[in-house]
């Protein structure tokens, strides 16, 4: 009997280390991450007529709604940008962030039956959640880029080349913020189901506190301070500043947001690590 076949050795004790994220194990399960990511696409389009077209129709329809309500009825303004471009691009990035929060918030509850029957590094699920939402984001960006190209040719919009570097950074930034928030909510919902109901409402509220359907330049006074305290504001505004050439980055708010993001992501991972071990006993 070959001894090298038994090289893997595991020791399970009652103690656990706060920051042991078992990243090596997560890597060993990378194929599972890919499969989960694929599954979230293939499953949602089975037995639909339009299939993946929904990825385009959804944001298009909601952008039209925003155009009508916030652009033409409430007249919130768009920093002089073409309305459709403004809302479509904002919608894409916010959609990415809110999906990071809501999907990760329901991770434990939705997968309880699975978690209860088999072990795999639990971090696999949040990671594949983020990958799937990022892919959705890039698919939506196809529309945004098409529209953007049209306006650039017309000379209405000027893209800053730095966007190539900034966009991935912003995605990681919002991804970590969303992951941390989602996991914190998720860990708490294993004990208190009530919180699950609040999530979709809370994320709506958060959107109105973030310059998604309005530009930051339109907000003044105390309200402006409040919006700037929101950690999701600066990624949003920087994204527009780089991609569409118009925006109002505020240095202190950027620093604050980065600190909050780091803190939330750290807490989220530690909490996740703590909850995942004995989660099945409380659910």
């Amino acid at each position, binding site marked *: 009997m070959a001894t090298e076949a038994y090289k893997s050795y595991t*020791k*399970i004790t009652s103690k656990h280390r706060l920051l042991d994220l078992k990243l090596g194990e997560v890597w060993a399960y990378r194929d599972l991450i890919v*499969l989960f990511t694929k599954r979230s696409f293939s499953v949602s389009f*089975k037995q639909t007529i339009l299939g993946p077209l929904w990825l385009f129709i959804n944001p298009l329809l909601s952008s039209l709604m925003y155009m009508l309500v916030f652009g033409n009825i409430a007249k919130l303004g768009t920093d002089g940008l073409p309305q459709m471009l403004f809302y479509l691009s904002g919608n894409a990035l916010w959609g990415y962030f809110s999906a990071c929060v809501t999907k990760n918030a329901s991770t434990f509850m939705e997968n309880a039956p699975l978690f209860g*029957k*088999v072990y795999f590094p639990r971090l696999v699920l949040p990671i594949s959640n983020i990958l799937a939402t990022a892919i959705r984001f890039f698919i939506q960006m196809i529309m945004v880029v098409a529209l953007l190209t049209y306006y650039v040719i017309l000379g209405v919009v000027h893209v800053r080349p730095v966007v190539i570097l900034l966009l991935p950074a912003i995605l990681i930034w919002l991804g970590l913020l969303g992951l941390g928030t989602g996991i914190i909510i998720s860990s708490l919902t*294993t004990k208190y189901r009530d919180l699950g109901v609040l999530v979709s409402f809370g994320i709506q509220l958060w959107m109105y506190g973030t310059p998604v359907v309005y530009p930051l330049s339109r907000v003044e006074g105390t309200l402006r301070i409040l919006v700037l305290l929101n950690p999701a504001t600066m990624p949003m505004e920087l994204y527009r500043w780089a991609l569409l050439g118009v925006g109002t980055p505020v240095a202190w708010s950027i620093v604050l947001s980065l600190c909050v993001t780091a803190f939330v992501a750290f807490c989220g991972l530690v909490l996740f690590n703590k909850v995942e071990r004995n989660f099945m006993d409380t*659910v």
Partner: protein
Amino acid sequence: METESSLAIRVEGLKKQYRLGSIGGGTLRESLQSWWAKRRGREDPNSYIGFDARLIGQKFWALNGVDLEVKRGERLGIIGANGAGKSTLLKLLSRITGPTEGQIEIWGRISSMLEVGTGFHRELTGRENIFMNGAILGMTKAEITERLDDIIAFSEAGEFIDTPVKRYSSGMFVRLAFAVAAHLNSEIMIMDEVLAVGDMAFQDKCLTRMRQAADDEGKTILYVSHNMETIRRLCDRCVVMDQGKIVYDGEAGEAIRMYMGSGLAEGQVVFDLSEHTTNNKGLDGGLRLLELRIEGKDEARYQPGETLRFRVRFRTETPLFGVSFRTVVRNETDTPLGTSWTPVMDLAEPGMYLLTAELPLGQLVCGTFYCDIGFFYPLDGGGNMVIDNARRAFRFEVVGPRNWRAGIRGYLALPESTAVSLTLENSL
């Protein structure tokens, strides 16, 4: 002393505590309710109604100090009554939940099948699910691809492999799921009664495959089941668990006899129940079963159609109204065969009681039977609320016709069929 290199699993002083009463998974309101009740010294309105004497206060030791060493290539069976801690042990070994005390050491990759088709998605095809399930159980894509043909062949899914599994019959579903598990490349496999589903022929195939995996590939197998037959056929060693501890460890046949017979001898007519542990602290009716005595026989051995007469001694500390006495008859592999209730009775004052009951054996024709007895409140809608219940309280035998074999004909002689008419359709 075992050298480490020949071991697959070593468990030392393993304990697992569950908290009852303050168990989570409720709403915030329930948490507050529980907290308020505790403050006022009242009973927690959300606490689970427990059945067990190990329920000390709010804590409950599902595992209470387990030591176990499993050698490579061993096929270990784990048996025990419900709640003995078998499943908890498997859950800890497969890392679904963590231990409260003690430690587990595992040499080799471990994969657990505590359920059939974990991670199967209805909308995905059989092939897609093989990859999904395999990856969840710890295989990489390359490893699955390598075994794909074997898995499909084993599953007998054939041309259905590219059909969504929601269109599968339950048998096909189980076969596919087991096929994946049977081809895992891990060194240690944990299975919780997964063979109970699926048809007999497939069960046979699975058992053969598991034996082969242990013998030829040196895999270590841990198998939990209530089906003694499969334990007997698969395992070369077996542990019996009771109340969170291992009470027997050794040869499989002996373990099964010990578990099934535990304390109940052939022909015995007096059964001491005072030690039984399935007392219901949650409801606390104050009733306790003490002794059962079979009447009118020197040995508990009956002819088909006879009536079993017995006397139960019990004590109640509170008056109880509208209670019913229940007897559950089980076969030697612990499968319940039937249940009988008395009409409701009133125990108007506290004290010692003697209940004489008659259980018509009806169509039971052949075999050794084990009975649970207990007092219950019948609930609307046919449910029961347990007051006190003694598992495996007594045993008896029915000696039917010599050529009646339970394995072929079953335990019951059904009422005679009637030949309503017999006509000659065509003479040759």
